[in-house]
């Protein structure tokens, strides 16, 4: 039996070594092919990036030599387009890229969407969204009917949000998959304001992570119409929503009255007190000082620290803090006021 085991183990080792040897040869061949691919890609970039620049920015005629022949050239074009799309906001350039991609790159991504490999399909979905290949929308809807992963469905939602917002709203109402707040933010940030504001209409019907993402996205859109929507949420029953609405309003940076915020000065949640101390940064100290003084003596370290920082931001802030240091008995608050005042002086 032992003899058998020895020969068995030797056979196993021999087989494994042969398999590994074949894998190594495959790897070396693969590297060679990759190197050829990279050379072809780099050659295209070197030869045609100036032509691309002239076509996109100097309104020169489109040359047929720019049309990709093979995958390496597609990847080169992706790199050129991506560098423009990420760094330059120019509607004409975006439009030209979209037009070219629809005409000449579509067929490549169409094929990729049918690939058995998940990563290839994902890359195709990325490109359809980035290069705005709207002619593949129907294909994407067909693709949705197949067995796809959560990540692929997320990319489809992103594509719908860009090309067809009504379809996007329809899909997002169907809670097939739940995503993280950060992912929802990535979807919402692309929406037009008239679509995005619809999330506030029936706010309570959305799951919590969508609600949070909506509140967090609103200030990024920099549109005054969301101030009222966020202020309405200050009276919501859920504390987390109040706190996020306060944060959103702070980020909007426009505080037209302070009455709505005063109840949060005595909130049970320290996070709400912290946020209201931040909100008061956008309010003249004459209106907010009495509340900030109260917050400066808060039991929570972060609230005290924020209150002191808010006070010191004001033109008369340091003087107010000095006055507070001289008159207060609260040692913790005095220390905080001293530190913040000293840092302000150091940074002057």
């Amino acid at each position, binding site marked *: 039996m032992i003899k058998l085991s*020895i020969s068995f183990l030797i056979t196993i*080792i021999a087989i494994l070594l042969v398999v*590994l040897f074949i*894998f190594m040869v495959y790897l*070396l061949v693969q*590297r060679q092919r990759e190197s050829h691919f990279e050379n072809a890609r780099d050659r295209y970039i070197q030869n045609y990036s100036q032509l691309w620049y002239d076509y996109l920015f100097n309104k020169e005629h489109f040359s047929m030599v720019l049309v990709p022949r093979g995958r390496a050239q597609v990847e080169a074009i992706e790199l050129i387009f991506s560098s423009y799309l990420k760094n330059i906001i120019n509607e004409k350039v975006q439009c030209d890229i979209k037009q070219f991609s629809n005409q000449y790159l579509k067929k490549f991504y169409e094929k990729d969407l049918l690939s058995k490999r998940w*990563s290839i399909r994902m890359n195709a979905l990325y490109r359809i969204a980035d290069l705005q290949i709207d002619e593949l929308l129907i294909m994407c809807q067909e693709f949705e009917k197949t067995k796809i992963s959560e990540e692929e469905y997320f990319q489809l939602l992103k594509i719908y949000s860009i090309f067809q917002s009504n379809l996007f709203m329809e899909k997002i109402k169907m809670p097939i998959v739940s995503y993280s707040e950060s992912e929802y933010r990535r979807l919402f940030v692309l929406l037009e304001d008239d679509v995005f504001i619809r999330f506030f209409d029936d706010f309570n019907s959305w799951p919590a992570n969508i609600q949070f993402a909506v509140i*967090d996205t609103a200030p990024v859109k920099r549109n005054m119409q969301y101030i009222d929507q966020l202020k309405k949420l200050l009276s919501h029953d859920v504390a987390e929503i109040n706190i996020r609405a306060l944060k959103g309003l702070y980020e909007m940076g426009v505080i037209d009255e302070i009455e709505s915020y005063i109840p949060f000065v005595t909130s049970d949640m320290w996070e709400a007190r912290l946020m209201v101390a931040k909100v008061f940064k956008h309010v003249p100290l004459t209106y907010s000082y009495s509340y900030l003084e109260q917050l400066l003596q808060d039991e929570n370290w972060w609230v005290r620290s924020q209150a002191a920082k808010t006070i010191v931001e004001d033109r008369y802030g340091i003087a107010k803090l000095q006055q507070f240091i001289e008159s207060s008995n609260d040692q913790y608050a005095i220390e*905080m006021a001293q530190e913040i005042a000293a840092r302000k002086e150091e940074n002057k």
Partner: protein
Amino acid sequence: MKIIDYGMLLFGGIILFYMLFVIVSYCAMFIIAMLDLRKSYRLDPSEYDDAHIDAFYSKPVSLLVPAYNEEVGVVDTVYSLLNLRYPQTEIIIINDGSTDQTLQTVIEHFQMKPISKIVRTNIPTKQIKQIYESEIYKNCILVDKENGGKADALNVGINVSQYPYFCSIDGDSILDEKSLLRVMKPIILSDGEVIAAGGNIRIANGAKMQYGSIYETQLPTNYLVIMQVIEYLRAFLMGRIALSKFNLVLIISGAFSVFSKKWAVEAGGYSTNIIGEDMELVVTIHRLIKEKKEKKRIEFVPDPVCWTEAPQTLGVLRNQRRRWHQGLFESLWKHKKMTLNPRYGKIGFISFPYFWLVECLGPIVELGGYIYIVIAFFLGKIYYEIALILLLLFVIYGVIFSIAAILFESWSMNTYPKKRELLRMILLAFTEIFWYRPLTLFWRCEGLIRFLLRKSDWGNMKRVGIAEKEKSQ
């Protein structure tokens, strides 16, 4: 004579059974890792990176750099942190009472000025002497404190930090510019369900570097270091990826890991009375998760890379391995009640037994295997055959797995792109079972003995610098 025969058979049987168990476990973990990496093979990572470079999608992180006598490497480490592509960070360098020029080097290089700052004591620590702030980089802070060890320095960093997540980085390590973005990915995408994440550690000896950026990777020339490169690749493919998939990770390297501050503080911070403080924190957090019955995870992320300096001499390597193993044993021993305890679920039933049997007690059995082979050589008879089987199992375990790891890493990540380097690693992997493996086994057993004797030392590694020639001035 009969007793010797029975003894030898029993001894051989135990070792054979153990070796088969380890090989099967490693095979299973290797297959899981392969399937996992295969899924994302050729996926364009820039899509995620570009989207999350905006502070709107990420969370701020405090970067903690504990430094004890790190005058050689600390400046490059800080530069690598300044180079990070991440929207909001603060860098906190904690000088743990260094006796060399670490403090002066940092003060001069980053123009540090003393500031007054109140520090919240979330975790009790040794006293802070002075806090400095860089005049060039406002998000860079230096804390000078009394010597209290790495764990104490990290606890000071946690107290000083202002962000909800902190990342610990060794004072001699270099981060890839996208590594923080990628290690934070599971935390961001899980809405905080992942409360700690660790990145992949690679050996930087031989790499070309300037101002904290590795611009060319090169396989080192020192055989001892190459063996460590292979060892790291194998550990990463046959362990962490698979364990992480099932939330079973007990070790994420202290050289590069991110933790939720809230959970770390609740766990009491890093333990100052234990050698493996990084493992200890992970195990304590796992314990907390189970005791509070919360749905939280700790993950290992294969993609983000932290480059670190590996020991170049036998003496330093011996010291390191001894300490690692002692730390492992201490932590497992401290939490021994978690082993096979239903209260701790998979951690108690899979992780702990695996770490006890394979990682902790494994070196004794394996070393026993080597001893068996030597004895069998003198005793002759049937022992030759058992010894031969054992040797063949060592070949599978040491050589085949190593080569598979090298090739698979080369396919999925291609850290060392030159053909010659790949072949050199493969050739060296054939020699592992004859010198490197027995040596490390011996040192790990020494670690066990030191644990039993309750010996302890700080054993700070003597640095020569990751890339001497390109050292930032």
